[in-house]
């Protein structure tokens, strides 16, 4: 795979003005070049989430919180961004030019160095317990009635299966897409035409009604109903998976798996998806941390920025929360393999778009990056922030009969300074 080279000194001379001028064509797109799907989605007023999950734990030093020249800073330099005074690592030159669209939280402490626990604390906004993931909550509260696509889509090729919807209806559970391939068994079996399929669905509906009428628990049939409904929606949108990305898109996003997955993510968002999560694997760098971050962030940086540009230029960024995160960061101290190990005590996440103050940096770590210096936040704070930015009142209870369960952890609050 060809990699892009490091930026030169000229590239560091960035100004927000030059970016804004450069995206003038994009602004024009809002007026007249929207695809019908984009126009329909925008008109609906729906809000949505794009999650970019850097699986394994991206190094905060090599991304959002560089410490060049310090004891544990590593070899990479920091570069200025389109936000005066804000520097990020030189491995993110494209992101640096768009920093005015994003904000950084540099003071996350998840109190764990465990992959699974870190991920769960960020996704559920709770220290422990069975609670729905952000994507499932978004599906429940942001998806329109009869949404055109399943509410919570995750593009990945692996990862631990989990109960993402917890006590929410099964229709809000994550549907994992294996890369850009359509889910299996999407095609109708041979010999079953549309009419037969409709009759089968009607028969199933009647059987469910009969089951409920005889005192059966609706929850038993709801899960099946959700699966059928999800499949029906996906079958209608099968073309989303079948169309080859344009040569221009491939050139912009890259032909690597993360590139084509982000193209698919854009199409899913354009076509009414509520939460799309794209996982970029390969950040668990216990060895060769710097060489691997060169490779991984080179893939991430330009691809992510192309997706950000497309959302921005189409006007969808205003109604789309963008969230870049990992289950933790990486140790300040380097091990003997030039690796950094797991570190949940002081790391960073980035976000932008709908409801988020752009260009902000919240919190800080100490000089060597070994601990949070100010404004410590955890998964609960971020959970509240993401969802409140999207207009979900996380201080309320979930609408579960007989079970008042607060949407967000009532012991913590959103990061108010990030809420627009």
């Amino acid at each position, binding site marked *: 795979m*060809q990699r892009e080279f490091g930026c030169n000194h000229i590239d560091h001379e960035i100004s927000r003005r030059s970016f804004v001028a450069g995206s003038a064509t994009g602004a024009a797109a809002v007026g007249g070049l929207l695809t019908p799907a984009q126009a329909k989605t925008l008109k609906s007023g729906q809000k949505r989430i794009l999650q970019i999950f850097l699986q394994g734990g991206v190094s905060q030093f090599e991304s959002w919180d560089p410490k060049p020249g310090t004891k544990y800073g590593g070899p990479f*330099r920091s570069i200025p961004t389109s936000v005066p005074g804000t520097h990020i690592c030189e491995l993110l030159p494209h992101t640096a030019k768009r920093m005015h669209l994003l904000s950084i939280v540099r003071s996350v402490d998840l109190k764990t160095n465990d992959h699974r626990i870190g991920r769960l604390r960020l996704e559920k906004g709770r220290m422990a317990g069975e609670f729905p993931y952000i994507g499932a909550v978004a599906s429940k509260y942001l998806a329109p009635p009869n949404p055109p696509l399943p509410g919570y889509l995750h593009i990945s090729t692996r990862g631990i299966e989990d109960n993402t919807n917890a006590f929410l209806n099964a229709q809000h559970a994550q549907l994992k897409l294996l890369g850009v391939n359509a889910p299996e068994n999407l095609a109708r079996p041979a010999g079953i035409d549309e009419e037969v399929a409709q009759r089968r669905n009607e028969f199933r509906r009647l059987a469910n009604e009969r089951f409920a009428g005889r005192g059966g628990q609706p929850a038993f049939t709801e899960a099946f109903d959700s699966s059928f409904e999800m499949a029906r929606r996906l079958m209608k949108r099968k073309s989303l998976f079948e169309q080859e990305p344009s040569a221009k898109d491939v050139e912009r996003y890259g032909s690597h798996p993360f590139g084509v997955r982000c193209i698919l993510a854009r199409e899913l968002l354009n076509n009414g998806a509520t939460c799309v999560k794209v996982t970029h694997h390969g950040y668990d760098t216990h*060895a060769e941390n710097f060489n691997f971050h060169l490779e991984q962030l080179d893939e991430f940086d330009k691809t992510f920025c192309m997706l950000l540009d497309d959302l921005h230029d189409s006007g969808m960024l205003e109604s789309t929360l963008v969230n870049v995160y990992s289950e933790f960061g990486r140790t300040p101290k*380097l091990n*003997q*393999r030039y690796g950094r190990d797991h570190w949940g005590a002081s790391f960073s996440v980035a976000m932008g778009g709908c409801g988020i103050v752009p260009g902000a940096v919240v919190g800080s770590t100490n000089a060597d990056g070994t601990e949070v210096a100010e404004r410590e936040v955890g998964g609960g704070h971020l959970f509240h922030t993401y969802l409140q930015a999207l207009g979900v009142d996380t201080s309320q209870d979930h609408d579960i009969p007989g079970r008042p369960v607060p949407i967000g952890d009532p012991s913590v609050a959103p990061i108010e300074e990030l809420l627009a």
Partner: protein
Amino acid sequence: MTDIPEDEAASGSQTGNHPAPPPLPENPIDATQTHVVAEFKHDIPLTTCRIDPTGTFVFAGAEDFHVYRWNVSGDDTSKTIFAGHQSWVRSLDFSRDGKLLFTAGYDHRIGVWNTADAAPKPINMIDAHKGWVRWVRVSPDGKLLASCGNDNLIKLWSIPDGTLQQEFVGHDRYPYAAVFHPNGKRLASFDLMGVIKDWDIETGKEVRSTEAKFMWGFDQKFRADMGGARDMRFSEDGKTLIIAGLTEVTNAFAGVHKPMLLLVDWKKFEHRHKWKDDAYKGMVWGVCEHPGGFLVASGAPQSGNKGMLWFLKPGEDKPFHSVQLSHCARGLDITPNKRQLAVPQFDGKLCVYQMTAPHKAV
């Protein structure tokens, strides 16, 4: 160079007010008697080292962005700082007369310094590559400096003015090392994917290309490439290209692989011998040829802190001797008289070993 009694030199101590002992006759080279004669301490991990052509100084890069100079003899353990880079320095070389030091920086620059300055400042800082400069080497006639970097290019610079003379285009992934053939007409390079190239210095054209894919691994789970040379040298007769690195990558992200040396028959441009240590998970970080007919290699393990010096006869599968280091090696160099070795370590120590029997304290 005078041998240093082991019990004095290892601590870097001086002889105080006692009269200097008469010079001792030099013991013959005996690699199996290799022992520490000097140890220099720094508080930050070292990244590489080289000994200058006069054998007076040993230089080491460190993770604090600086290069440090010590006297090889160990009589004086104080260090001189060469500050000017804004990132790590992973490769060093010298002009033929030893007066100039060239440093390859991960800040994309090549530094040029006076080797012996008391208060060194860079003579020149060349914006050399887009991305890390991974390697520098001076040509046999001393007129050219080769560098390679993360822009996938190999470049030739004139010495001493630092003007760009030639660019070699052809590697698809990062070239890790580039070395001149002793005849001065060709240059060899080795990249992340195990591709070896032979370049014509005068034309800048690629002459030959071959592969050593076993020195590269693609981690299917994490989708990342791991490979490249950690050291590379020609034998003095120019018949063999010696490449140090890794093989059998089973888990790139945990650093699970084995150390490897590859000997390439330069005339036939084919692999002559592959050496790996099946009992040692880790990496070869440095290699030197000794005129006594053996190779010395330094290594770092995947876990634990026991670095290693291996002494090998070319073509043989087992080392005839090995020395355990106090921590992971980050390189290796040999003194011009071929009697001593310098090894930079991850724990910040730089150790000088002598390949003879120790002199008994007088």
